[in-house]
């Protein structure tokens, strides 16, 4: 009977077994359950805006560390555990890049909001988003128990990684190769309580490191942190350590677990100044060289990099299979053959992708060169500081340093009686 059925199927091709006409049998319906109500998107955006306003208020207005920690906890529960980490300002960079390079991609409204609002707030008030709205920041903020100081040179060198990661993430998103920030998000498995073994292991390692080294992801990986650092440098109203004037008591010197507090500068001798100037000159001359070298390197590395894109990978595989250099086929090549499209079409697409990779890879290399060059230049520039102040690029406005400042203690004590009177 089976043989008859199969040969009949071959003859009919489309409908191998004609569906019967039942006289008194009601066919069941295929259900189509809908996902999350779309209106929640607006709620997410409103919650984000409210979170940013509150975070800025707690950091700059109230100067309340408690408020920031409370808000961070709410953010971790809401954006982390409830929304399962998947409306994310860091990941939004990739959607935005893809939208710029691929007009057919529809970038969701929430993504635009999660990309733009935190940047706008950072531009004016510093990294208050990092302090209490980002769920990844919140996890690390709340799990830091015993801060260890990271040597300056390690801090500065590892601080370059986010810029490179940012460049790579934009490159891969723009070419449609994938969203690497999402694929290598160490904490999302923690929010979902599931994930692949490698990423869970990475996440646990980072959590353990984060017990001692403050915010390892934010400082040494987060690509959005890199953009925030640039924006925060020009922020008009950034968090200050003392509420009013710095009395230079040095009590806050070790307060920051993130190495963001910069001490006041000591006056230089003319000889030192001359040396500093010479150094700056050299670094300024070196920067363009690094950019050129980086561009060249990026251009050459683009071909292996393009293998990240599955279409390029498939084209390579197909070529090997056609040439008989590998045995057997894989699911992907079988699936492609099933579509009946000529292999030539795939090769043309892969070549076009390679070209795009070469161009963008050159840009990425140049970007890496520029970042290293600018870091060297920046380290050679001496800015006069009269008081202990947070480096706006590194400071995440967590508010840990407030209570170290005796002036802050003074204001708190002065406020105490009035608070008691008002019955708080």
């Amino acid at each position: 009977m089976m043989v008859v059925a199969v040969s009949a199927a071959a003859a009919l091709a489309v409908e191998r077994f004609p569906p019967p006409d039942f006289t008194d049998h009601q066919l069941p319906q295929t259900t189509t359950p809908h996902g999350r109500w779309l209106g929640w998107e607006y709620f997410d955006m409103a919650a984000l805006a409210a979170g940013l306003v509150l975070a800025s208020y707690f950091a700059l207005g109230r100067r309340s560390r408690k408020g920031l920690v409370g808000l961070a906890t709410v953010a971790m529960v809401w954006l982390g555990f409830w929304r399962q980490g998947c409306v994310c300002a860091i990941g939004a960079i990739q959607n935005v890049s893809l939208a710029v390079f691929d007009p057919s991609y529809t970038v969701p409204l929430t993504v635009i909001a999660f990309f733009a609002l935190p940047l706008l707030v950072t531009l004016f008030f510093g990294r208050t988003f990092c302090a209490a709205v980002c769920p990844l920041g919140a996890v690390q903020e709340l799990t830091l128990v015993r801060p260890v100081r990271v040597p300056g040179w390690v801090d500065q060198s590892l601080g370059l990684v986010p810029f490179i990661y940012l460049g790579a993430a934009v490159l891969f998103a723009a070419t449609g190769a994938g969203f690497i920030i999402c694929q290598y998000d160490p904490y999302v498995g923690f929010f979902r309580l599931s994930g692949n073994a490698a990423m869970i292991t990475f996440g646990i390692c980072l959590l353990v490191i984060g017990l001692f080294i403050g915010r390892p992801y934010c400082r040494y990986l987060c690509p959005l942190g890199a953009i925030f650092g640039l924006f925060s440098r020009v922020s008009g109203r950034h968090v200050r350590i003392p509420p009013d004037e710095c009395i230079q008591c040095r009590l806050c010197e070790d307060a920051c677990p993130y190495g963001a507090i910069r001490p006041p500068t000591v006056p230089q001798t003319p000889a030192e100044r001359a040396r500093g100037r010479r150094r700056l000159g050299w670094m300024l001359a070196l920067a363009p060289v690094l950019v050129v070298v980086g561009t060249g390197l990026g251009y050459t590395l683009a071909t292996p990099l393009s293998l990240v894109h599955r279409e390029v990978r498939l084209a390579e595989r197909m070529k090997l299979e056609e040439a008989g250099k590998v045995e057997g086929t894989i699911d992907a090549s079988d699936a492609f053959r099933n579509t009946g499209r000529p292999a030539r079409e795939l090769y043309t697409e892969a070549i076009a992708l390679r070209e795009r990779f070469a161009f963008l890879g050159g840009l990425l290399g140049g970007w890496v060169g520029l970042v290293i060059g600018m870091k060297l230049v920046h380290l050679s520039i001496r800015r006069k500081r009269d008081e202990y102040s947070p480096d706006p690029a590194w400071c995440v406005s967590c508010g840990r340093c407030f209570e170290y400042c005796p002036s802050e203690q003074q204001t708190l004590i002065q406020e105490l009686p009035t608070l008691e009177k008002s019955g708080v």
Partner: protein
Amino acid sequence: MASSSDKLDRRQFVGNGVRIAGAIGLGGFVGFLAGRRGSADDTVWQIDPNKCIACGNCATYCVLDESAAKCVHSYPMCGYCELCTGYFEPDPNDLNSGAENQLCPTGAIVRKFVEEPYHEYSIDEALCIGCAKCVKGCNAFGNGSLYMQVRHDRCLNCNECAIAVACPSQAFVRVPASNPYLLKHKGTGA
């Protein structure tokens, strides 16, 4: 000291300029993005059943422990065969619901007698793990009425679907959220 306050004023002026320029730039970029997306619907992930090759990645690559992609059945397309190649192992001992005869590792397909010789096959979705073994069987010898779909009551709608990354036939596509299924209908072919 007049000079120092002048310096401060100048710095403030430049700072304000940079901030305002930054805000305008950001606004312009948002405008560009909003213009580009237009009034289009937001998207969710879905499996194009005509591209799906039932490789089984859906069961293992989803970020959820129990995959959001499951098998669904297009009842009008089904042949209601007694020997369903989506339900039975090749060469089954007997055409009954014995576990050793079933293709489905979790027994998620319910076989119900309708009238001689027809049987109806429906999916117990709570049991389905999205391994697509039945889909493969049905596509190979049957009408292709069993197929995979992302179930949106379960899907987290990740920014980048982990199954989509692992899908060998690029069957995962972004579809409008208001119309989130790519259902097979009668006449769309096996």
